[in-house]
C-alpha cells in the first residue's frame, strides 16, 4: 500500500502517457482502414485480398517489428514514433476486416434508394454508407481500442514508457504489487476508452437507440 501512495504521481504520469500513446494509433488506424476497406470492397479481387492482408499484418510479431522499424523509418530506437507506427499497423489489420464486413452488411435496397434519389458517390459515402455501417464500424473500433491499449505496454521493452513500465520494473524487482497495479490501471484505461466510444456511438447514431425497432414492413 505504501508503494502505491509513494508512487501515485508516477502512476498518473504513466497512465497519461499510456493514453496519449494509445489515442493516435486508434484514430489513425481507423482513418486509414475504413476508406481502404470501402475502396477494396468495390472490386472482387481486392475485397478477397482484405482478409489475407489483415492476417498477414496481424501475424507480424511485435518485438522484431519494433526492432526493425527504426532502420526502416530511419528513426532513433527510443523514438515513440516506432511504437506508434507498429500499433497503427496492428490497428489497421484489425479494422480492415471489420470495416469491410461493416460496409457489406448495409441493406442493398437502401443503397439502391440512395442512388435513385441522386446521391453522388461522395455524398452517398458520408451520408448513407458511413452512418449505416456505423454500429459495426464502432464495434471494430472498440476492439482496436482495447487491443491497442494492451499492446502499448510492449513499448516499455524498447524504452517508450507507459503503464508497461510497471510490468517491467515489477518483474525485475520481483514485486508483484507493482505488476498488478500496472494491469489494473491498463484495464481501467481500456474500460474508459470503451465507454467513451460507446457514448460517441449513442450520440452520433441516434436511430439505433430509439424505442423498439419495428420490423420494416415488406411491400
Amino acid at each position: 500500500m505504501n508503494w502505491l501512495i509513494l508512487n501515485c504521481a508516477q502512476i498518473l504520469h504513466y497512465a497519461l502517457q499510456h493514453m496519449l500513446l494509445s489515442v493516435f494509433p486508434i484514430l489513425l488506424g481507423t482513418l486509414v482502414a475504413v476508406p481502404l476497406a470501402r475502396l477494396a470492397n468495390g472490386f472482387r479481387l481486392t475485397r478477397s485480398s482484405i482478409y489475407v492482408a489483415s492476417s498477414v499484418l496481424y501475424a507480424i510479431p511485435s518485438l522484431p517489428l519494433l526492432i526493425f522499424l527504426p532502420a526502416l523509418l530511419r528513426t532513433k530506437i527510443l523514438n515513440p514514433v516506432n511504437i506508434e507506427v507498429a500499433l497503427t499497423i496492428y490497428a489497421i489489420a484489425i479494422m480492415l476486416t471489420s470495416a469491410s464486413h461493416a460496409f457489406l452488411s448495409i441493406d442493398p435496397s437502401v443503397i439502391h434508394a440512395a442512388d435513385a434519389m441522386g446521391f453522388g458517390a461522395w455524398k452517398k459515402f458520408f451520408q448513407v454508407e458511413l452512418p449505416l455501417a456505423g454500429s459495426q464500424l464502432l464495434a471494430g473500433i472498440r476492439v482496436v481500442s482495447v487491443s491497442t491499449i494492451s499492446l502499448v505496454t510492449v513499448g516499455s521493452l524498447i524504452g517508450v514508457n507507459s503503464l508497461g513500465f510497471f510490468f517491467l520494473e515489477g518483474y525485475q524487482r520481483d514485486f508483484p504489487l507493482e505488476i498488478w497495479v500496472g494491469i489494473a490501471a491498463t484495464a481501467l484505461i481500456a474500460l474508459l476508452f470503451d465507454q467513451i466510444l460507446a457514448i460517441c456511438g449513442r450520440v452520433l447514431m441516434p436511430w439505433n437507440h430509439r424505442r423498439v425497432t419495428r420490423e420494416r414492413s415488406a411491400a
Partner: protein
Amino acid sequence: MEHGLGIAWKSVSKTYNDGTVAVNNVSVTADEHRTLALVGSSGSGKTTLLQMVNRMVTPNSGTVLIQGQDNQGMNPVTLRRSIGYVLQNGGLLPNKTVLDNIATVPVLQGTRRKDARVHALELLDEVGLEKSIQNRYPSELSGGQQQRVGVARALAANPEILLMDEPFAAVDPIVRRNLQDELLRLQSEIGKTIVFVTHDIDEAFYLGDKVALLRPGGTLAQVGTARELIDHPADSFVASFINAGCLRSELQ
C-alpha cells in the same frame, strides 16, 4: 401529344445478366401532365420499365426519350434529382428522420436545410400525415406511413415527372382509396407527368388517364384508356386480366 413530350419508351428491351428477360420490345408513351398506369402481374417488368426512366436500369436495346431527348445523354445524378421516385419498398434512409428523408433531394440540389425542412413539414400535411411524426426514424413508422413519407419525398423537389412504384401497396383498402383520391386531387392541381405502377387493374383504371397492360415475359399486351381496354380488349389475356379485377371488385 404524340410528338414526344412526356416520356416515350421506344422499343426497349432488358435482359438481366442471369438471362431473365424482364422487358421485351416495349413501346409506350406517358403523355405530359397525364398519368400512365403500368399494370401487370408480378414479374412482368413494371419496375424495370419504370427504372429505365431515371437510368437505374439501362435497356439492352431501344431508347427512352424524356421531353423528346434521349435520357442516355443525360447526367444520371442530375436526372435522378429532377425526377420524383416513390420506391416499391418505400426506400427511406433509416439514418434520417422523417423530415430529413423528405428534404433529401432539395438538400442534394443545394437548398438550405432549414428551408427544405420547412417545406418538408408542409408536405407531411399534404400526404395526410401528422406533424408529430416529423422527428421519428423510418423504423418507428408503420408500412403505410413509410409509403406516404416516400410520396412526400418524391414531391419535395417539385419534379415534372413522378415515378410511383406500387406506392399504396402496404395499406388497407379504405386508406388506399383515400390515398388514391388524394393523388387524383393533387394531380388535378399540380399536373405532373406520372407513371404509376400497380398490379391492381382497378387501381390502374381509377388513376390512369391511360393504362398500359404488361404480359408475363415483359411484352406489352395493350395500351389505351380504361374504356378502350374494357370495350375492346386486344386478346383473351387482356380480357381475363380485366375480368379478374372486376370479379374482385364485385366481391368486395
